């Protein structure tokens, strides 16, 4: 914060999203460990702590941590089964992986000085594209040409069908965009807003009651959003999967 010569009212809400090499230096190769790498590693450690160490006892009567792990499992399992049907349970590990990664990244990003990996378009976009491509491939492998019936709506009048097909096609290809931007935007927006309020608090000094109250409120909302966005990302993945498995529903 040495550059506050101009007015002292310099809030830099986007600084928290900077990707920096972890061990100094300014070179950023594709393999350089960065703060994003660090926080992804922390995500893995947290997942391992909860799911591997927490279920170590394999108790019939679960401990608290074990029941959290089981609840998460049951939550995602039920979501996949309810939305996409029992044959989609083959892809349950993929959904579980995505869901746990996002939920842990979101919550770990809420830590002070934390780095939210899911606030980056590179991360969410990669995941959304992976979902998009794999769902399309699954759709064509499972249904062959019938997968295209997803765009050819039989219940509509024949005249409207080509128009609807174009609309459906566009909406199909917009999916990964909205899928990734939603998560990234939510994460970034919340954190940026918090940073802005924190900047106000910094300017006001000790009398900064209103910004601190606002930060608390936004933080509470962010805690909710952190979970809901992970849930939404996962359930949209499952819905796309359902479209791939049963195109003409």
């Amino acid at each position, binding site marked *: 914060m040495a550059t506050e010569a101009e007015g002292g009212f310099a809030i830099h809400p986007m600084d928290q*999203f900077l990707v920096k090499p972890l061990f100094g230096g300014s070179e*950023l190769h594709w393999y350089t460990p960065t703060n*994003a*790498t660090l926080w992804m590693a922390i995500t893995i450690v947290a997942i391992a702590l909860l*799911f591997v160490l927490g279920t170590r006892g394999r108790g*019939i009567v679960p401990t608290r941590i074990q029941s959290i792990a089981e609840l998460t499992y049951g939550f995602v399992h039920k979501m996949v089964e309810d939305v996409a049907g029992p044959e989609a349970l083959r892809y349950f590990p993929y959904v579980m992986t995505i869901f746990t990664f996002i939920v842990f990244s979101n919550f770990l990003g809420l830590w002070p000085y934390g780095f939210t*990996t899911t606030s980056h378009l*590179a991360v969410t976009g990669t995941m959304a594209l992976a979902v998009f491509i794999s769902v399309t491939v699954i759709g064509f492998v499972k249904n062959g040409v019938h997968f295209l019936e997803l765009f050819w709506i039989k219940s509509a009048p024949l005249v409207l069908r080509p128009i609807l097909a174009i609309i459906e096609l566009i909406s199909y290809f917009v999916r990964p965009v909205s899928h990734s931007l939603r998560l990234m935007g939510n994460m970034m927006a919340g954190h940026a807003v918090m940073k802005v309020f924190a900047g106000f608090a910094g300017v006001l000094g000790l009398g900064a009651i209103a910004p601190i109250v606002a930060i608390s409120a936004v933080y509470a909302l962010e805690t909710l959003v952190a979970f809901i966005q992970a849930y939404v990302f996962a359930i949209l993945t499952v819905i796309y999967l359902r479209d791939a498995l049963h195109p003409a529903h």
Partner: protein
Amino acid sequence: MASEATEAAGHAAEAVEHAQGMPQLDFTTYPNQIFWLVVTLVVIYFLMTRVILPRISSVLAERAKTITSDLERAEELKQKAAEAEEALKKAEADAKAEARRIIEETKAEIQKDLDAAMKKAEAEIAKMAAASEAKIAEIRAHAVESVAAVATDVAQEIVSVVFPGKAKAEDIAAAVAKRAKG
């Protein structure tokens, strides 16, 4: 944008700490992030498929099994309890019937015994009464005879004292009998 480029270059030296624009759109960091994201997701995926999901699903299955077997056992025990209750009720009813039967039987037996005893006692009483009557009659007859004998004896003595050697015994007896009769 183009006008900013020179400014950004000027800022670059002093503002290494601060983000120039949105870090999300800094495409130079993309390969790095994507690489590490793929590594992370692969690690999590292997954790999930190798360790976590089999473990949790086995735990859940085991729990479900335990619960169903416990429920079955509870059902079984419940049935057993119901059976035991049924048996108890039946035994109670049986015992009651048995008791009633025994009471009836005993009552009848006692009645019979009582009747027999009564009959016997009555017969005995009648016999004893008859015997007593006979005895009384005998005693009476005997007493009358004795009275006659004593009277004869007394009359003979009196006669022998008053009239010594003159009266015959038969006459006196006949006279006494005549007097006693009449």
